[in-house]
């Protein structure tokens, strides 16, 4: 493992994109950053610009409206990048399966590296998912 690879494991910067989730997963992602779970001790930081991100946290089944925007956001991310699908909706469509305006789940049209199941997953599970995604950078 070279030095860049080691540094990548230590500083995953996250970008959070909501593609039609019910808010539950989004708030749990926020909760993962707060004192109880404190993802920052692993170097995780929620960045504001997709240009700075390493890991895309994806919540929600991909709606038709967000489909194109999701792809655009994904293409704007600099390499190396990983995608973590957070929540049952992002993993499989969840309760929204069968809706005519839901195009997802996301892995139909883009690579997804880690699936974090749960409706919504607990913050611990989200942190674990992020750390699992880092194995891609080794």
């Amino acid at each position, binding site marked *: 493992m070279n030095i860049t690879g080691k540094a990548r494991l230590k500083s995953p910067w996250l970008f959070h994109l909501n593609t*039609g*989730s*019910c808010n539950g997963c*989004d708030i749990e992602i*926020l909760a993962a950053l707060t*004192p109880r779970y404190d993802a920052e001790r692993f170097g995780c930081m929620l960045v504001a610009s997709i240009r700075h991100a390493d890991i895309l946290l994806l919540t929600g089944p991909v*709606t*038709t409206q967000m489909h194109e925007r999701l792809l655009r956001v994904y293409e704007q991310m600099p390499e190396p990048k990983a995608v973590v699908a957070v929540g049952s909706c992002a993993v499989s469509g969840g309760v929204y399966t069968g809706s005519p305006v839901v195009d997802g789940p996301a892995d139909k049209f883009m690579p997804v590296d880690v699936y974090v199941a749960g409706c919504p997953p607990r913050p611990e599970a989200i942190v674990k998912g992020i750390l699992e995604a880092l194995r891609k950078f080794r």
Partner: protein
Amino acid sequence: MDARNIDYEYSRLILPVGPVHPSLKEPVNLSVTVVNEEIVDVNVKLNYIYRGIEYLAERRNIAQTIYLVERICGLCSQAHSLTFIQALEEIANIQPPERAEFIRVICAELERIHSHMLLLGVVAYDIGLDTLFMYAFKSRETVMDLLEKISGKRVHHDLNTIGGVRFDIDEDLRRLIIKELKYVKRNLDYISEVLEDATVENRLREVGVLPSKIAEELSVVGPTARGSGLTKDVRFNRSYSVYRDYKNSFKIVVLKDGDCLARVKIRVLEVYESISLIETLLDNMPDTPIRIGERILKIIKRIPVGEAISIVEAPRGQLAHYVYTNGGEGLKRLSVRTPTIPNITAVKYMLMHRQIADIPVVFSSIDPCISCANRVTVTDAAKNKTIIVNLENLRRRM
């Protein structure tokens, strides 16, 4: 067009705030027209996460729809399912046991506490005070723990069912809730002290003012209306469930200023009221079963054709469900009116002639829940847009 006019046009900048923007947790687009850092026009576009929940609800049976309705919004899940179940119980003419109603209301109030805590945190985050955000979330976790102890889940509780609730609050849990709420109260004292801080006040006072006259015209609801001096609270005006008997154990909080600070303070004061209400309810819980004995799959078979409107006070304001059953385990129509819909129209008025720096905090101060709101807009405001995109999809499915 003369030279001066053209000049004016050039100094205009249309700033797309969203759909992917760090201060907005959910996709919503505010097209803000800016002239020299001053906002002159705002257009709100909501339909980004329209998922067709009403469409899905009309194609599933009622037992499945309960879980679907709960997932309309991750923050008011108890409020949504409570509304839906109340409407169903009215159609089916089922009276849930008294203890079930107590547990429902206790959970709804706990949810109000954690939702208001979230708003405090998000507003603090938007004005750049990360420390308050962390503190608010720290005490919010306590409430989340209580909800997890009651129902086994942190966000979507899956607590309500037709004719009762699925989880009971036993004596140990009752004592634990009272103890932990004291801790929340102590933290809240500290948070309200921080809100008195000069730099915080500076960012919130007289920002996004909504006078009570305008608020009445736009028919805003919930804490946004109460912040503008309107006495609007479904728990009082049209009380339901346990609130009928316990009107006196909590007060309706109304502030007259109509600015962001008033809206934030309302939340703090309402958490105190919720805590005192929960304590009273816990002390007076009747000793009845928590649900009627029948299985839910049998109950939904005997729900007749009928319609009902049920209104409750969700953390963000008045939430209404219109339910029309088809007599065969399913629904003919479900219509949801969420509090964010009237509130979000007020954002335009609040933001006019303010600075760019105020956009996030004003937008957060109404506590928008976009995932609730998207269900409704598809038929009116967003029609011309969505219909073009989805025509193929709709044809294929229908």
